[in-house]
């Protein structure tokens, strides 16, 4: 039986309460009659033989690219770059897709007699991964073969000696990427395309770039013109990356792009109710919900956080394609939409969403207030194609505890950004103009980024810029159940209950508003007609 597609439920008097995420907790909320709830499609069938599919993709490439074995030769310099800890979410059960793909790439390289092989984590300005995280992503066999010999490195966007400036695009954008990657005879990039935004030219042009390069598209103006990030053809972020990617190609860097898609099987059995539709909950699901909710309510936040970050998703690969970047990415994007797309008729006055405990930037860490804003306004708000789910001037209501809490190891500059920048202004353009350079060049943040496990000093700015489109579009943002001080620092409104938030929202959008709830995760993307 094929999986059911996504679904938009019209709430009526018989509709059971709807599940809302609230960080490391969740609740059931009764939505007003007439509201809509958007559910993700059910998980697609996984590839029956992923190893064979990978082998096929490597030997039958898309676009103008030879099969991988034909690109490998003795004496060549081969670099394999791969996505970092930010993908997938939650981290998937072993074996990770990156491991499966890279093992085959390395087998082919070995068969071809290639002995100059290096692996690079394409982390751009993200934090460096820890050894356990790397072992989880690429497997012990690869890790043990490369890491002890210094052949597994993490891209360092501040290592001037290992960056190369390839030129400027016709829009005046610097293209500066990892020297080893650029000077290799072949650069293989292994992607996990969790959402439509991932992959394409963005993989190399962003993942292996320096701040000099990234600042050209990670800025408020670009983000406001990306409507949305999930729609490549209406995303200035992607347009800029495509310009850069083509310049990289024209500079002689040969990229063999490998992209993979996953199904939306997001939670293990104990939390399976989280990805089911509430009216279809069986006794087991109800018991699971009640037990989990009660236990989490009694559990200190840090233990609940630890519990959730130990969750490994049973994601399974649904497609793998390889070859020339743009040809590969076109297929990938179709596949992602096929799994995640839900047709939605018309916009709504009020969009509600329950924010979970995790975003791309807090794996094994705290979803601090800036990341709360980014998850809601940067990611969930942008899960659309066509038009935003919520109308211009509408209200976004998010549920999350939004604690004034930061991981000082992972997010040191976030603390200062929250304390010192947002206390003065929340306007993304002013934030950029007044403060970005100081944070981006701060030697302490650079030191922590290069030697510890800290996001780069400029990273919280990027998180705030991700919100720029939504901030410009929305009439108000309300966080339910958040720390009021932290919520106000973000420039949002705080409500203690969803009912209060709905009442507050009516001050903005008027009486009898339409309401839509985005029932995610699992991830879905709204195709708003």
């Amino acid at each position, binding site marked *: 039986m094929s999986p059911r597609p996504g679904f938009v439920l019209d709430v009526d008097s018989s509709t059971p309460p709807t599940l809302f995420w609230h960080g490391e907790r969740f609740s059931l909320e009764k939505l007003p009659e007439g509201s809509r709830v958007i559910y993700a499609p059910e998980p697609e069938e996984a590839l029956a033989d992923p190893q064979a599919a990978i082998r096929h993709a490597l030997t039958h490439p898309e676009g103008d690219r030879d099969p991988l074995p034909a690109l490998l030769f003795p004496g060549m310099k081969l670099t394999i770059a791969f996505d970092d800890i930010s993908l997938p979410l939650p981290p998937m059960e072993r074996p990770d897709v990156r491991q499966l793909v890279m093992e085959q790439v390395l087998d082919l390289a070995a068969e071809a007699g290639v002995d100059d092989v290096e692996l690079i984590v394409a982390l751009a300005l993200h934090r460096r991964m820890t050894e356990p995280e790397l072992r989880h992503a690429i497997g012990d066999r690869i890790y043990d073969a490369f890491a002890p010999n210094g052949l597994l490195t993490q891209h360092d966007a501040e290592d001037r000696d290992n960056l190369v400036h390839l030129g400027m695009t016709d829009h005046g954008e610097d293209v500066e990427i990892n020297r080893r990657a650029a000077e290799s005879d072949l650069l293989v990039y292994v992607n996990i395309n969790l959402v439509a935004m991932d992959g394409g030219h963005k993989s190399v042009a962003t993942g292996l770039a320096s701040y000099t390069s990234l600042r050209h598209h990670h800025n408020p103006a670009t983000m406001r013109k990306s409507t949305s990030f999930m729609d490549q053809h209406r995303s200035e972020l992607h347009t800029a990356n495509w310009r850069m990617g083509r310049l990289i190609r024209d500079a002689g860097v040969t990229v063999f792009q490998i992209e993979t898609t996953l199904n939306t099987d997001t939670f293990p059995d104990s939390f399976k109710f989280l990805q089911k539709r509430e009216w279809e909950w069986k006794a087991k699901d109800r018991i699971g919900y009640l037990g989990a909710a009660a236990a989490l309510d009694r559990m200190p936040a840090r233990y609940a956080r630890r519990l959730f970050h130990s969750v490994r998703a049973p994601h399974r690969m649904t497609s793998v394609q390889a070859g020339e970047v743009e040809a590969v990415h076109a297929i990938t994007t179709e596949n992602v939409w096929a799994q995640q797309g839900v047709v939605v008729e018309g916009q709504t006055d009020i969009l509600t969403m329950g924010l979970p405990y995790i975003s791309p930037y807090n794996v094994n860490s705290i979803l601090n207030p800036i990341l709360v804003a980014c998850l809601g306004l940067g990611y969930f708000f942008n899960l659309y194609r066509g038009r935003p789910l919520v109308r211009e001037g509408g209200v976004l209501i998010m549920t999350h505890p939004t604690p004034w809490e930061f991981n000082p190891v992972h997010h040191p500059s976030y603390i200062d950004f929250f304390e010192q920048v947002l206390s003065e202004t929340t306007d993304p353009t002013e934030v950029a103009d007044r403060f970005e350079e100081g944070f981006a060049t*701060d*030697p302490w943040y650079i030191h922590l980024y290069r030697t510890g496990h800290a996001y780069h000093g400029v990273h919280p700015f990027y998180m705030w810029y991700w919100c720029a489109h939504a901030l410009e579009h929305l009439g108000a943002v309300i966080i339910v159940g958040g720390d009021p001080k932290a919520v106000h620092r973000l420039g949002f409104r705080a409500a203690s209950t969803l009912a209060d938030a709905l009442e507050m929202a009516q001050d903005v959008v008027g009486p009898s508003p339409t309401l839509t709830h985005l029932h995610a995760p699992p991830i879905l993307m709204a195709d708003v007609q």
Partner: protein
Amino acid sequence: MKALVVGRNLPRFVAARVASALGSGRGAGIGPLQLLDAVAPDRPGDDWFPLRPLLSGICGSDLATLDGRTSRYFEDLVSFPFVPGHEVVGVLDDGGTDHAGRTLAPGTRAVIEPVLGCAPRHIRPPCTQCGSGHTGLCGNLASGALAPGLQTGFCTDTGGGWSTAPLMAHTSQLHAVPDALSDQDAVLIEPTACAVHAALSSRVADGDLVAVVGAGTLGLTTVAALHSVVRPTAPCTVVVGAKHPRQRELAASLGADQVVPPDQLARAVRRRAGSLVLSGRLTEGADVVFDCVGTSASITEALTLVRPRGRVVLVGMPGKVGVDLAPLWHRELTLVGAYAYGSEAAPEPGGPDRRTFEVAIDLVGSAGLGRLVSALYPLERYEEALVHAGAAGRRGAVKVAFDLRNPKGRTR
């Protein structure tokens, strides 16, 4: 007429010290302070004039004395019984002569520069420090024509501001209050003079990063002094750690570039200094740090905030503190006190020196520092007043003072 009088009574000092564990000023009712019928002190000489207090502030050093927390260093620099109150604006009912020899008509409002140096003590010739205008550093505080007492308000012979009876002011202490200043402005002149002296003696240079630890009266007036007195010749960036919201508002309005809660001060300084962090300490830091609190914790913090070879200026009165001086030694820091006032060198080479009080009078007027007076109490409600002063920051207040103008008393 009534006056608050501190007697030498060891059991009461002990009781006050115990009670102050519940909060500064909590021991007022059982401590050495008593409300008594006031007797105006004798005139110590023809160059002394009775000054009838109008407002008299409650200073941190007063609280420390009444809480029994003052360093024993000061034991011989006080004579009992004494009427506290050295932040005083009063009226010269019979007129007088000011520090520069100018005649002050009867009814003139005046403030006193309370240090009891060589001039009030009729010591001729004056000591080296008084001779060079640095009266705050006088070495004769227990000699001469007066009983020991480092300032009016700690000397049995002069009286003090916490009284409806006149105190005695020496001509060298008197400064007329300009008509444009309110009584509230005027009562802030003395603490402002302390801040002005600290700011001007701190050697802040053009482009320096300055951190201010604490935003009570001294912290806020230091910010004002840095902004109005130092910046015109040495533009500097001022970052303030202020505990309470009202303090943060005031610090910003007085010219601070950045005001943050105390737990964020190190991060704010670090970012502005572009410093790294080693073992919890900044590798660089502020060029000058003003400690306007005076506790072990605040001095320790100041030592972590300052850059190598930087200066830490102690503005708040410290007592016996426990501080790890390893960073001071290792980073070649300068830890310097800033007590009271005297004469300040002109900003331009060759310009005339000015009395610190004159600079402070100008600053109080231009910065409107009278707004720092948050509450006025009649003497009869001294216990409430002292508790309020002891919890000023927490209660949204800055300066609490006694209002001696109205015998019926009032608060605002």
